[in-house]
């Protein structure tokens, strides 16, 4: 069973990864156009 602390870390990592994806997508689009 996964404890709450680990789950909180996972949520934070997920949010960070989501933000990174948006930034990378923005850069990639700028590079393409």
């Amino acid at each position, binding site marked *: 069973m*996964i404890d709450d602390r680990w789950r909180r870390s996972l949520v934070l990592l997920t949010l960070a990864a*989501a933000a990174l994806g*948006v930034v*990378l*997508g923005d850069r*990639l*689009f700028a590079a393409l*156009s």
Partner: protein
Amino acid sequence: VGPTGVTVRGLLGYLAGIVLGTLSITLLFLGMRAVMDVGGACADGGPYVSAQPCPTGVPAAMVGGMFGLFASAGLLVWFGSRLDGAATWVVALGWPALFLALGFNFLDYAFHPPDGEATPVWGWLVPGIVFWLMGGAPLVVGLAAWREVRAGRSGNRLSQSVATSPIAFARRAGRPAPGPSPAMAPDPAATPIERVEFTRHAWSAPQPLARTELAGAAAATDDLVADLTRLADLHAAGDLTDAEFVAAKRELLDAAEADR
């Protein structure tokens, strides 16, 4: 890292899925805006002369974004399921994220059209509303269900399993549960026949109303015969003493009489 069974590879695969997912949605979002800037449609290639060529980079961004979304979903399900059952559900957020993001573009352009048209631009407003409904409705329903499950989690493991099972919904709707539930555990002090009755009622599925209306009398007789037979079997097997058998039989017959 983390609890047993979680590997660095699994975690990185899952995070790569998240990055790829939001990256793809961002590409689609920006590509869509670029197309809307030139009027909402464009074409490239083929044997025709395109009246409106696509802005540079848009075809690559759109195609890449779409395939990226599928790849992201694959990564999330594959690696997320190994990390934590709940992580798999992140993939479900892709749908509202995509439709709310693209719907935002429609709504934005409906009220702030690039060519200074009269607002709202209905051609953008209607798809904007449709997209927000498509993205928002599952999100609202999903969040409500998630809160329900969380509320169940705050209790002990038993209530957790009940809160997430169809039993909980059936009971909340006021119908008998489709199986035995913790609240219906047989009384340890009950006589054997009471325990048998508990098992029978606990497992019986909710009966449609028509059954009692149309064939009530016949069904009642059948039930009585079945109950008496079961009782006789128990008696013959030695599970019931003579006194218990007589008392239980009397009770069944009295109940049947009262129902009539």
